[in-house]
């Protein structure tokens, strides 16, 4: 009779369960087991867990009595017990069939490694996620050549990005675990992010507000000058809402941001309900605060949420009324304002390419702004007014939210009907190649495409709807914007330029002839202006 070293090891643990028993117990989790109890009855169920203290009690899920014992019990023979706890005193033996103990059904992780991984991840989850994001972004950045323009946070991300591959190579198997643990870990992360992210939030929030305001102003004037900016504005508005509505969340932004990483899922959720969108907006805000790069990535989700909101915003009751007459009218109306484009984009956005584009857009907005001293000044001005203005804006927006929710539904319905997303995607990839400014234009292209597709017959109707909505939307936004942003005169100059652009764009949508090629040209043009 030989004693294995494992056996020897177990001796050291004293009263706790031996490693081998623990291993065996864990390895049969989720397997069907038969538990024989003292009176001879047998319960079959899915092994859920066991007490690892001195007494070995077990818990079965979906257990049924498969053999009646000598004694009457409170368990019927035909009843499926959701959770059956068998105490150690009653347990005689537990039989599991078809188990592979030697890691046959297990990938590569042993318990210790897992635990270590989890610990490490707790610390580094944020990094990892950021790394993921940074990876996704990094190529974009490279393409855009904006890397130099990005704030420090981006650089940090890049570093992290470098780290990640190493981790993954070391622990391929753990990737899943990490992902899973991420959810739980996220809760902790917020705390970490809070500490370092709070400061950023404080200053970044105003920036966001500023952006929003600026963008709104622009949107008021023309809102079309840059689709990107317009989008941003919309995003900003959504963010604002979220912030105001969820004041307490600012601290938790980090957590939310982490969640945002799973945009795809959230997007779908956002599509489902406006409330989810609002939450996204919050998350987005937080992300924007924490990391500039994040906002970029986030932008896609924003686009979905914000664009929808924008749709709701812009959708006038009248537009709704009109919509029934045309199959695609809703899309048209949405298309007219830049924001609607966003809406469509998000729908189509499921494709990776699109998401990447939107991030670029966000970057472009960022990039363009920092370089411009004028804009900075604007921001500063705005920031001064922002504290009050932000709140004001948020409230009106909130009021509109109710309206939005319904429109959102409309959008969702329409989008499936419309083949627009398909059109958008083709155009978008081309845009991707271009830069942020181009991206902005790209959206118009998509609109154009959409218009062409949707409006072929109802062309006349489109301009009508567009015009009508436009003034209304502008009016609404203007009212808000006026409250908030009156201060910055500098903006007006830029805004005007934007407005011109916007007009051009508007014209383009009205004319189905506009084509993707034109977009790149315009992009270059805008880019020059921005720069």
């Amino acid at each position, binding site marked *: *009779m*030989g*004693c*294995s070293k*494992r*056996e020897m*090891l*177990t001796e050291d643990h004293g*009263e*706790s*369960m*031996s490693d*081998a*028993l623990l*291993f*065996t*117990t*864990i*390895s*049969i*989790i*989720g*397997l*069907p087991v038969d538990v*024989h109890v003292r009176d*001879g009855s047998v319960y079959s*169920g*899915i092994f*859920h867990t066991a007490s690892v203290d*001195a*007494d*070995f009690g077990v818990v079965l*899920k*979906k257990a049924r009595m498969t053999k009646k014992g000598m004694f009457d019990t409170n368990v019927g023979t*035909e009843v499926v017990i959701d959770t059956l706890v068998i105490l150690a005193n009653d*347990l*005689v*033996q*537990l*039989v*599991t*069939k*078809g*188990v*592979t*103990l*030697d*890691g*046959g*059904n*297990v*990938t*590569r*992780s*042993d*318990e210790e490694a*897992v635990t270590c991984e989890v610990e490490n991840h707790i610390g580094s989850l944020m990094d990892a996620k950021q790394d993921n994001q940074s990876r996704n972004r990094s190529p974009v950045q490279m393409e855009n050549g904006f890397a130099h323009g990005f704030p420090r946070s981006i650089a940090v991300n890049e570093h992290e990005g470098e780290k990640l591959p190493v981790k993954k190579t070391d622990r391929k198997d753990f990737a*899943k*675990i990490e992902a*899973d643990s991420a959810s739980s870990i996220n809760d902790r992360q917020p705390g970490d992010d809070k500490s370092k992210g709070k400061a950023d939030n404080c200053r970044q929030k105003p920036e966001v507000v500023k952006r929003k305001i600026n963008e709104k102003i622009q949107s008021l004037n023309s809102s079309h000058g840059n689709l990107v900016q317009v989008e941003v504005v919309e995003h900003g508005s959504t963010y604002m809402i979220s912030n105001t509505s969820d004041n307490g969340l600012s601290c938790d932004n980090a957590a939310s941001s982490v969640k945002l990483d799973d945009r795809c899922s959230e997007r779908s959720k956002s599509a489902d309900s406006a409330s989810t969108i609002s939450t996204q907006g919050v998350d987005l805000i937080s992300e924007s605060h924490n990391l500039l790069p994040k906002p970029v990535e986030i932008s896609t989700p924003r686009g979905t949420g914000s664009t929808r909101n924008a749709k709701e915003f812009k959708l006038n009751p009248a537009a709704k009324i009109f919509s029934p007459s045309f199959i695609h009218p809703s899309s048209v109306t949405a298309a007219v304002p830049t924001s609607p484009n966003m809406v469509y984009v998000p729908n189509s956005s499921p494709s990776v390419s699109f998401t990447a584009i939107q991030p670029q857009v966000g970057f472009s907005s960022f990039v363009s702004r920092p370089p411009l001293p004028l804009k900075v000044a604007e921001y500063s001005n705005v920031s001064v007014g922002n504290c009050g203005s932000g709140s004001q804006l948020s409230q009106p927006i909130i009021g509109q939210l109710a309206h939005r929710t319904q429109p959102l539904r409309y959008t969702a319905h329409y989008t499936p009907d419309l083949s627009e997303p398909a059109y958008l995607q083709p155009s978008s990839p081309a845009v991707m190649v271009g830069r942020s400014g181009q991206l902005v234009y790209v959206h118009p292209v998509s609109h154009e495409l959409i218009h062409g597709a949707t409006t072929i017959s109802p062309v006349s109707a489109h301009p009508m709807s567009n015009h009508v909505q436009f003034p209304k939307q502008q009016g609404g936004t203007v009212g808000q914007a006026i409250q908030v942003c009156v201060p910055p005169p500098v903006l007006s100059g830029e805004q005007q330029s934007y407005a011109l652009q916007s007009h051009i764009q508007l014209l383009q949508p009205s004319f189905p002839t506009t084509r993707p090629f034109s977009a790149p040209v315009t992009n270059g043009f805008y880019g020059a202006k921005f720069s």
Partner: protein
Amino acid sequence: MAMMDGGNNNLEELAVGCMLSIRTTLGDEFEGQVVTFDRPSNILVLQEGFKHGPRRNIRLLKTNYIKDFTFLGQSDDPLDPNNCFLDLTALQTREELAIRQAEADAERIGVGVTTEAQSIFDALSKTLPVRWDKTVIVVMNEVRVGSPYNSESVIGGTPAANDRVKKMLEFERKRLQIRGTIGQ
């Protein structure tokens, strides 16, 4: 081969890798190899069927209930401490899947119905969406088939659905009868 009378004292000397033939106080009798013996919980972990591929049966047996056992031989430690891997994620997913499957199976079993009714239900379920509403088989959420599960007991639903269920029911009943006669 050493024969030892049952007794907890002897069991404490059980070592990993022993091949044992065990009889329990409940009348079970089986052979297995000792994977481990956990003294605090007094549980003996045995594996059986290890000669045939990687899959084996695991028994966790309270030593209190060993009536007697026979020592059959000695072999290596069945667990390689360097090769004990657990994928917690896989385990979780496995459990979730198993529970979901169990729930789905549980819904398919009528409570308080005859085996004939259950077999009819199973037959119908192959082609139509069916569920139990107590002892009534609900087909396509509209047609109800109650005891005695004849074509006369088909109630509700659109005429087309009703007719279809009736035909299916008759057809399945015929098949069940044929199978029953063959079985006999």
